[in-house]
C-alpha cells in the first residue's frame, strides 16, 4: 500500500512539474470558459427545459477537451518510463505489477479530476452575477461530478493501455486519442435512423458514451451507467496489467 501511495504521489508530482500538465490544464480552462460564456449568451432571455449541466457537458466542446486532453495526461505514464529505462528500476523495486498499473491509473485520474474541478465553480459565478435569485440544484451538480469521475476512469484507463504498449509518448498519445475517439464515434451511430425497437438500436444505445453521460448531467444516477463505465475501465486496466506483465512471458 505504501509503495502504491508513493507511486501515485510521484505520478501526480511528475504531471505538476511538467509543462504538459499545465498546458492541458490551461487548455481545459480556456475551452470550458469559452463554452461557458457562449452558453450564457445563448441562455440570455431564453427559457430552456434542459439543465445547465446537460447543456455544458453535452456540448461538442466538452468532448473536444476530453478526447484531446486525456491522451496528454496519460501518454507519459508508461511510455516515458520505458523510454528512459526507469521502468526497469521501478519493476525491480519490491512492488507488484498490479500495484504499478493501479498507481499510474490513479495518478492520472486524480489529475483529471483536479483539472475539471474549477468548472464546477461556474454555477456559483452564475448565481453571483444573476439579476434574479438563482436556485442551484445540488443534485445535478453532484451527479455530473460523479459522471465526470466515471468517464475519467474510462478515458484514463484507455490512455494507460495505450501508453503501456509503446516507448514513444507521441504514439501513446495518438493511440489513446484513437481509442477514445472510436468510443465516442460509436455513440454517434445511435443517431442513425434505426427503428427504436430493433436490437441493433438497443445495442448501440448501450455502448453510447453520450447516452450514458446524459443521465448523469440530468441528475440521474442509474446503476446501468455505473456498471457500464466501471466494467469498461476494468477491462482496460486488466489489459494494461497484462501488457505490464507481458515482459515475463517473453
Amino acid at each position, binding site marked *: 500500500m505504501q509503495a502504491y501511495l508513493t*507511486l501515485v504521489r510521484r505520478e501526480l508530482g511528475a504531471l505538476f512539474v511538467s509543462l504538459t500538465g499545465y498546458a492541458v490544464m490551461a487548455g481545459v480552462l480556456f475551452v470550458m470558459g469559452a463554452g461557458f460564456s457562449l452558453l450564457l449568451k445563448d441562455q440570455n432571455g431564453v427559457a430552456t427545459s434542459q439543465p445547465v449541466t446537460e447543456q455544458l457537458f453535452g456540448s461538442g466542446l466538452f468532448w473536444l477537451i476530453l478526447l484531446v486532453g486525456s491522451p496528454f495526461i496519460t501518454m507519459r505514464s508508461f511510455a516515458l518510463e520505458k523510454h528512459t529505462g526507469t521502468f*526497469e*528500476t521501478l*519493476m*525491480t*523495486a519490491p512492488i507488484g505489477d498490479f500495484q504499478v498499473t493501479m498507481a499510474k491509473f490513479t495518478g492520472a485520474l486524480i489529475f483529471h479530476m483536479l483539472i475539471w474541478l474549477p468548472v464546477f465553480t461556474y454555477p456559483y459565478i452564475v448565481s453571483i452575477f444573476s439579476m434574479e435569485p438563482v436556485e442551484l440544484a445540488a443534485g445535478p451538480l453532484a451527479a455530473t461530478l460523479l459522471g465526470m469521475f466515471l468517464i475519467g476512469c474510462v478515458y484514463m484507463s484507455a490512455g494507460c493501455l495505450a501508453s503501456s504498449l509503446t516507448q514513444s509518448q507521441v504514439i501513446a498519445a495518438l493511440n489513446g486519442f484513437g481509442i477514445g475517439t472510436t468510443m465516442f464515434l460509436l455513440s454517434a451511430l445511435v443517431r442513425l435512423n434505426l427503428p427504436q425497437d430493433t436490437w441493433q438500436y438497443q445495442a448501440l444505445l448501450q455502448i453510447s458514451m453520450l447516452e450514458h453521460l446524459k443521465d448523469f448531467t440530468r441528475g440521474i444516477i442509474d446503476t446501468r451507467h455505473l456498471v457500464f463505465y466501471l466494467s469498461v475501465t476494468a477491462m482496460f486496466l486488466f489489459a494494461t496489467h497484462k501488457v505490464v506483465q507481458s515482459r515475463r512471458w517473453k
Partner: protein
Amino acid sequence: MENAPMIEVENLTKRYNGQTAVDGLTFEVGRGEVVGLLGENGAGKSTAMRMLACYLPATSGSARVAGFDVFTQADEVRRRIGYMPENNPLHTDMRVREYLKFRARLKGLSRVASRERVDVVTEQCGLKDVQKKIVGHLSKGYRQRVGLADALVHDPELIILDEPTIGLDPHQIRSVRELIKSMAPRHTVLISTHILPEVEMTCNRALIIKAGRALAIDTPENLHRLMGEGGHVIVEVAAAREELLECWEHAGEIADYHVEAADGDYFRCSLTPLPGIDLRPLVFDIVRSKDWRVRELTRSRRSLEDIFLHLTKADREEGEVY
C-alpha cells in the same frame, strides 16, 4: 536462509527470439564477496543480471538470492537487492534528495527510516552538496553516484551493478570504484564490466562469460596461475653472448630460454622456469657471482586482459572446428 550463499545460479538459460543470451550459466557467490562479471558486449552479462534482479524470467534453470528463488519468491528477492541497470536510468525531473526519498519509500522504508537512510547514502556517495539539485542538471559522474545511492538506500544484502563506470572520465571512474570497494564487507556486490583492470582492482573473484556461458570463475590471482604464471622472468644483462647461453643452458631450473641483443652491450633474456619455481633469486645469484651488470629483472605478469583474450579466443577456435 541466513547461511545460504548470496547467489546460487544453476544452469540458468535465457532464450529470446530464437537467440540464446545466457546458456547454462552456473556459479555461486558467497556473502560479502565482490564478484565481477566479465565479458564482451553482448556476452549475456546484462541478461543474467536482469534475471537475478527479477526483471526477466529465465527460460530454464534456477537462480536463488539469499536462498529465495528469483521467480517464485520475487518479492523477497527484490527486498534484498539493490539493482542499478545499464546506463543508470533516473527520473531526471526530480531533485536528488527527493528522488532518493521516493525510491526509499517505494522500497518499503518508513518515513523516518527513509530520511535516515537518505542522509547516510548521500554522505556515503558524496552527494551532500548536490542533494537539492535536479537530477537532470547533474554531471554524469554525479548521476552515477545517485544511481549507486539508490541501489544502497534500503541497505540491501546484495548489490547488482550493471556497468557502473561506463561513460565516466578517469577521475569519476576512480571515485566510483572506491565507492564500490567501500561497500564490500557489508554488502555482497556483483558488478558487470568489460573493462578488465576494473575487475583486478575491485573484485575478489571474476566470472568470465562468453556467449552466455561461463568460461572461468576464480580470483584474479588464480586466473593468473591458471595461465602458467609464476615464472617467465625477463632479465637484461650486459655480458658476452656465449657466456650467457652457456649459463642458462646449465642452470637446472630453467626449462627454456631465449636471448636477443638489446642496445649496447645488453642482451634481453627471457627465461621460462620449471613449474612452481621463482627464478628471480637464482638469476640474481648467478649475475652476482659472474659480476655482470643488470639493468632489468622482472617477472612478466600476464594481465587479466591476456587471460581473458586467451580464454575467449580458445573458445572461438573450438567453435570454428564444429
